[in-house]
């Protein structure tokens, strides 16, 4: 496979009141053509900054970024023709109808007669009856669909989605993923940032995790899931947990979740709870999901 996106030692600094903030601290990674790639990380980790540099919206302090072999600074025109970006903010041009917006966006990319593809996009995104509606009159979910269509007018080989499902209802989320997964099957490379880890787990073949501007994990999703604590213990209790358990538990109201690597560790955990006299209800033992992996990696990185 050949390379779709390449980040090479990307550094981005911002001036802050006392000194400079390193938003990206030497990020290097490669995304192959045809991949469905996830970029995860807590708020402020640098995900959007990285995507902005890729799209040419922001300039890196140092390092190189290439899209389909084109440098995003030196060969920006070819790089931008190769990429379609769905921005995180719900922005729109209030002067125009949906179809006008899509025609204008096509024109920017040099495409004069693009109505067949625009019709296909409108149909694929459930906007077929919205073509002549002014952008101002659309609901938030509909505006989000138009953002996706605008990013795809020039049929870019690389599609970048920055938190596309934030605040989006379940129906639209399903429809959107169906559509994007279809494009991925046709060979488009997809780069996704999301806060919904179950989405990333379901869709992404590979995942990079960013923290404080650095890549702290980069692997196949399956390997990430296998390589860390694989078992999840969940129970309800009204009692205080012993400190050695509380330190590693995720507690939401009465529910406590603790990860373990194997059966022996599960037994040890239950032993600790019994000795402390903690009465537990609704005990469940299951496989750890990406959220657990994510939290474990983020915690580990804090300690180290």
């Amino acid at each position, binding site marked *: 496979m050949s390379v779709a996106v390449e980040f090479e030692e990307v550094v981005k600094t911002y001036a802050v009141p006392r000194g400079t903030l390193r938003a990206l601290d030497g990020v290097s990674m490669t995304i192959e053509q045809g991949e469905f790639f996830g970029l995860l990380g807590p708020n402020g980790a640098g995900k959007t900054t990285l995507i902005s540099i890729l799209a040419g*919206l922001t300039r890196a302090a140092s390092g190189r970024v290439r899209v389909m072999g084109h440098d995003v600074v030196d060969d920006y025109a070819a790089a931008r023709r190769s990429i379609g*970006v769905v921005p995180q*903010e719900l*922005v729109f041009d209030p*002067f125009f109808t949906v179809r006008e*917006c899509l025609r*204008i*966006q096509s024109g*920017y*990319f040099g495409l004069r007669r693009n109505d067949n593809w625009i019709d296909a996009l409108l149909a694929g995104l459930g906007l077929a009856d919205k073509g002549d509606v002014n952008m101002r009159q659309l609901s938030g979910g509909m505006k989000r669909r138009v953002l996706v269509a605008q990013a795809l007018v020039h049929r870019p080989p690389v599609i970048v989605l920055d938190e596309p499902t934030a605040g989006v209802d379940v129906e639209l989320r399903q429809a959107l993923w169906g559509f994007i997964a279809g494009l991925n099957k046709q060979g488009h490379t997809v780069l996704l940032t999301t806060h919904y880890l179950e989405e990333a787990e379901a869709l992404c073949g590979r995942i990079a995790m960013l923290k404080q501007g650095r890549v702290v994990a980069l692997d196949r999703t399956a390997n990430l899931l296998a390589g860390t604590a694989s078992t999840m213990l969940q129970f309800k209790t009204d009692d205080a947990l012993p400190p050695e358990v509380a330190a590693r538990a995720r507690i939401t109201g009465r529910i406590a979740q603790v990860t373990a690597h194997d059966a022996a560790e599960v037994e040890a955990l239950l032993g600790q709870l019994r000795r402390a006299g903690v009465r537990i209800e609704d005990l469940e033992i299951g496989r750890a999901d990406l959220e657990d992996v994510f939290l474990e990696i983020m915690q580990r990185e804090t300690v180290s």
Partner: protein
Amino acid sequence: MIRLEGARTLFAKEILRFWKVSVQTVAAPVLTAMLYLLIFGHVLEDHVQVFPGVRYTSFLIPGLVMMSVLQNAYANSSSSLIQSKVTGNLVFLLVTPLSHWAWFAAYVGASVVRGLAVGAGVLAVTVWFAPPHLEEPGWIIVFALLGAGMLGTLGLIAGLWAEKFDQTAAFQNFIIMPMTFLSGVFYSVHSLPPFWQAVSHLNPFFYMIDGFRRGFFGASDVSPWLSLAVVGGSFLAVSALALRLLARGYKLRT
């Protein structure tokens, strides 16, 4: 070809943008200019004569036309850019392969169109008050185009620099408006004391209006060739600055 089509699209979009709200962007400034003409023309008609044999109302019309051209050319590029920046939809343009030349040509071109549309509107309604003289029409076209181009470019620069609406408005109210009003829209600078005449000659807007008026009356305060040199030179200078800012992505690609 792709770049030409991209620039053409942005140019057409910018025209469509103001045309969709033409009551505000074209009709309103025409009405404003007509009010100026009614009031100043009525009050000063019998008191002021600038050129021999030219009524004050006739003298005033070219100045009002040019003032409308300049203010609307400025308003078009500056308001479009700041609106796109504040609402965030400038991102649709930033992700495209359009070059800085394309941005410049499209924004300034659309500003020229709006400026000329308003100017033509003002001229059309003022014909009823005083039939226009058209002594040297070539100068009318040259100075209308250059003046609109220059103000469209200044609007582009202001739009790039500003982060809020009130900043483009401040640029308009504290720089563009005073320079326009002090350029001889309502009077000939020859009627000023020598000191203020000299000051007026430092204002490039004076040469735009004087050269433009030359086309109507065949008479002007300074040679139209001098005006052409000053206005042309100023246009080239602000264009070079605007192109440099666009190429650097000044306040666009941080």
